[in-house]
């Protein structure tokens, strides 16, 4: 299983189309720096992006430099995945 330790999911609220296109620009970066969980659709809708730990500093600087408001929706993805895996294992034991 691929490990997501330190990866975060940022929720960004773009104010207008210009800010949305700044987010779309991120999508085109090579190699991929972000994975959109909710893609840039329209200003009224949040954009959620998974950012690998190694890219966090760069991406947060990019967002802040362009005045893009964001919050950290998931602080460490791997923590959630470990909890999910543990819950599945526990449920399997109960089912048996």
């Amino acid at each position, binding site marked *: *299983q691929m490990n997501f330790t330190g990866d975060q999911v940022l929720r960004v609220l773009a104010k207008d189309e210009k800010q949305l296109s700044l987010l779309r620009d991120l999508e085109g970066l090579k190699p991929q720096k972000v994975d959109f969980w909710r893609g840039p659709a329209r200003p009224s809708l949040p954009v959620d992006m998974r950012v690998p730990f190694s890219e966090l500093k760069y991406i947060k600087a990019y967002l802040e430099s362009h005045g893009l408001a964001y919050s950290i929706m998931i602080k460490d993805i791997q923590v959630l*995945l470990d909890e999910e895996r543990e819950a599945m294992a526990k449920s399997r034991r109960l089912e048996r």
Partner: protein
Amino acid sequence: STSSFSYSSYHTLEEIYSWIDNFVTEHSDIVSKIQIGNSFENRSILVLKFSTGGSRHPAIWIDTGIHSREWITHATGIWTANKIVSDYGKDRVLTDILKAMDIFIELVTNPDGFAFTHSMVRAPGKDGRRGSRHLCRTWGFDSLGGFILLPGNGSNSNPCSETYHGPSPQSEPEVAAIVNFITAHGNFKALISIHSYSQMLMYPYGRSLEPVSNQRELYDLAKDAVEALYKVHGIEYFFGSISTTLYVASGITVDWAYDSGIKYAFSFELRDTGRYGFLLPATQIIPTAQETWMALRTIMEHTLNHPY
């Protein structure tokens, strides 16, 4: 047996397929299993058929798991299947629906991708491995906003891109299986594709802002459905056509269905708690399924009462 199966937990592909076999055995009077094809990696593609008789009843299609990383959708589908057999004969609306129509549920629409999320990468995304079509396709299929069936604006032929479309609807075995099955059956009256997450209920078109001919009816039906959903746990959904609610996206499942004559075609994006993305904890499976059921039931009841 299914009595020990936990509907409030996530399960692997093997566990789901084993549940399907037990479920069909235990409810053989109303449920059967149909294999509609094989996946790219040659896994069975299975559909549950709920029927009280007759072979060409008007039918309703429900699929979950198009985005295989969105485990909440498969879990919602399994709970829904069990709800149907539990409530048949008790819930008058559901009983009337099943007396006149068949319901088909495809629980794991992308078995390869689902297996991949359990074995290799729980959250596949665009940073999936570049390289052969096979590798990209496994995760690429995950990130499609549905089945990219038709080339058009906003879709392209790079199997590693998010809006990958095959050269034709039949180019992806998982898509071909559905397209061929629905086309051969020829009497589907509603199609509902369940994704997550955004709390949205959407109808065609996605490919253009042009309203469909029965736009008003779909708007009112979507409104009724999200109201029924809201009453269960207070979760508010957006609703509307895909192009006006989300963005213009080419050739997706509900557009293809609508153009194929299925007037009641909807895409669900299940609840978004704002804390987990699609990694919804298993504790949210039952409440999510309960509210989704009320919306599904509203759409199915409308389909029953408006034959065409």
